[in-house]
């Protein structure tokens, strides 16, 4: 696998779309390319942020906030 192919696989990897048989080959290439590979994988995680931002924002319900803050408060007191 050359580095361009590794880049393509990395983008599939970060969104969990690699098939099991591709994973093995990917991990081998990841070792082969070392730090360069790790840097590219880290950058590829920016795709997650992009997908989240591509969605229309929605307000979470007040009920969630109340429940959540009650749980946080209880945890802080314990």
């Amino acid at each position, binding site marked *: 696998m050359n580095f361009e192919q590794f880049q393509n696989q990395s*983008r599939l990897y970060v969104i969990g779309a690699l098939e099991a048989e591709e994973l093995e080959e990917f991990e081998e290439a990841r070792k082969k390319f070392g730090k360069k590979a790790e840097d590219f994988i880290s950058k590829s995680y920016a795709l997650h942020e992009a997908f989240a931002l591509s969605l229309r*924002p929605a307000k979470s319900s007040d*009920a969630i906030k109340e429940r959540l803050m009650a749980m*946080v408060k209880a945890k802080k007191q314990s």
Partner: protein
Amino acid sequence: MTQDRPENDYDNALSGWFSGRSPVAEADDLLQEIFMEIWNQAKNFSEQKGKPLGWMVTLARRRAIDGLRKKQAYARAEERLQNETEQQPDAWVHNATEEEIVLGDTRVLIRKVISSLPPAQQQAIDLAFFRGMSQREIAAKTNTPLGTVKTRLELGLKKIYDGLKDLKDEL
């Protein structure tokens, strides 16, 4: 990231993830679990590994897909969820801060990049990322050869990735 206020401004982005995809009560429960996990795991966050939103989305996605799979195992919820693709039209209206304005600009530009993809690539990415489907599952669901699915995903993700690089230069 403040641990005192886990439902900070990022909750809009995370809430947007679930709106229109699950019944409201289930989405609320899941979102609450995710916020708690973020709050509990905040000490493990490292800025060196990326931005807070990316980290939160990774956590949220993992939890959401776990939840989805559990549900599918019991009730074949997949079909129902896939029919519920409409997003909530009403954005949360409140006083905009500078950060929110930048986030809003980023959102518009990212949507522009994604909407420029051919529909088949958008669909493949949606099924892979938001529904956690494997390439084989996507091929079966869309009645498309596996190689074509792989190509669509690779091309689509590359375009988005390249678009993000351009976007960073613009902002």
